[in-house]
């Protein structure tokens, strides 16, 4: 397997795993926050929404401090591994998935919830209904988060270290090749990255349009 292919597969593994884990946490969390009323709900949503724009290097710094030898998770020896990069990307993807999903859940009319209840649904079944009604919106959230982490460089560079054959991703490869003056390799990797990012974004736009069309009808 040539270098670009191995970097591509490693990138897809890191980005995909981070997006998957962030989705498994973010979507149910957004659903629960939407469903229940509690003190501090608005503040919690605001915090998540603010973190959608957090600079990746800050996330990198936070994860670095946590995983460094003197950090609280230093004994796990995860720094400069794929796991560290996945952890950093989860923190980047989670606020995005939460905020977009929450926005779609809260747009599902209250009348839909009432109709479910009056047809005999319990709380869990009402939440399942809201989830189904927002399925396209959730897909948009996941694809948007994936689009964000696939092009992210700051955090993975800090906690992954850009080690050849271990933690080198497409974005960090481009940084390295450019700094070495190997522009042909940088451009090749860039084109592959662009195709992946473009594909994901096209999918996100198509899904988003379908969802809005559904809302309008």
């Amino acid at each position, binding site marked *: 397997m040539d270098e670009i292919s191995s970097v591509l597969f490693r990138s897809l593994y890191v980005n995909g795993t981070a997006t998957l884990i962030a989705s498994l946490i973010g979507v149910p969390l957004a659903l629960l926050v939407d469903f229940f009323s509690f003190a501090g709900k608005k503040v919690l949503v605001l915090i998540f929404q603010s973190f959608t724009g957090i600079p990746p290097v800050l996330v990198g710094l936070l994860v670095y401090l946590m995983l460094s030898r003197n950090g609280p998770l230093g004994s796990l020896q995860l720094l400069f591994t794929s796991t560290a990069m996945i952890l950093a990307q989860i923190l980047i993807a989670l606020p995005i998935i939460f905020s977009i999903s929450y926005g779609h859940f809260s747009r599902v009319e209250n009348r839909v919830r009432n*109709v479910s209840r*009056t*047809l005999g649904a319990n709380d869990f079944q009402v939440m399942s209904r809201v989830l*189904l009604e927002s399925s396209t919106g959730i897909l948009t959230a996941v694809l948007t988060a994936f689009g964000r982490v696939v092009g992210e460089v700051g955090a993975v560079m800090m906690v992954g270290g850009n080690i050849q054959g271990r933690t080198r991703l497409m974005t960090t490869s481009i940084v390295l090749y450019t700094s070495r003056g190997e522009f042909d390799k940088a451009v090749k990797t860039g084109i592959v990255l662009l195709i992946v990012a473009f594909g994901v974004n096209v999918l996100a736009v198509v899904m988003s349009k379908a969802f809005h069309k559904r809302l309008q009808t």
Partner: protein
Amino acid sequence: MIYEIEELCFSYDARFSLKIPHLEIPREGITGIVGPSGSGKSTLLMNLAFLQKGSWKSFKFCGKEVKPEDLKSLRRIVTYVSQHPILFSTTIKENLSYPLKLRRIPKDVVEKSVYKISRLLQIEHVLNSRPWEISGGEAQRVCIGRALIFKPKVVLLDEPTSNLDEENESIIEKILRDISTDTKLIIVSHNKHQIRRLCDTHFVMKNGMLLQNTQR
């Protein structure tokens, strides 16, 4: 009586309050609630559907006093059809089968029930359509069918024909008359003529108060 209520009060805010000193709704036939917009008809209906909880001195359903902890289980036997058809973003067949799937009814029974109710409501031709592909009259019939399919004790209908043309109005009125032999119907409408045509008993409401009870 299916409902026997003493001193029911409900308010959203200081501007509106529902005050029902005494209300008895018989088990048989169709009962109507008529009144102008903002008179509290829909609020009363939501309380009867156990979707809103007011305060009361006594609230009996089927002769049994209602307790706050009973509301969730009562929602499984009393259902409500809103003024604007609310359908889930799936096929009409899925919409109709939803209440039965919630109750874990076997698949073959669900299939039979869906076809039976769709024949009764003349919506067989839209079973595989999506909500945005059918007319307003068909959507309202689907909502009524979805409410009836699990054989609830009471079906509460909020302005069931207010957004429909005359043809669809008469189709739905005929369906309501047909199903009222098996199911108790309570209908809210601002249309006095419709209430007189359809209902065996009706109440008049104004400014959150019950004014009169008329029997046919």
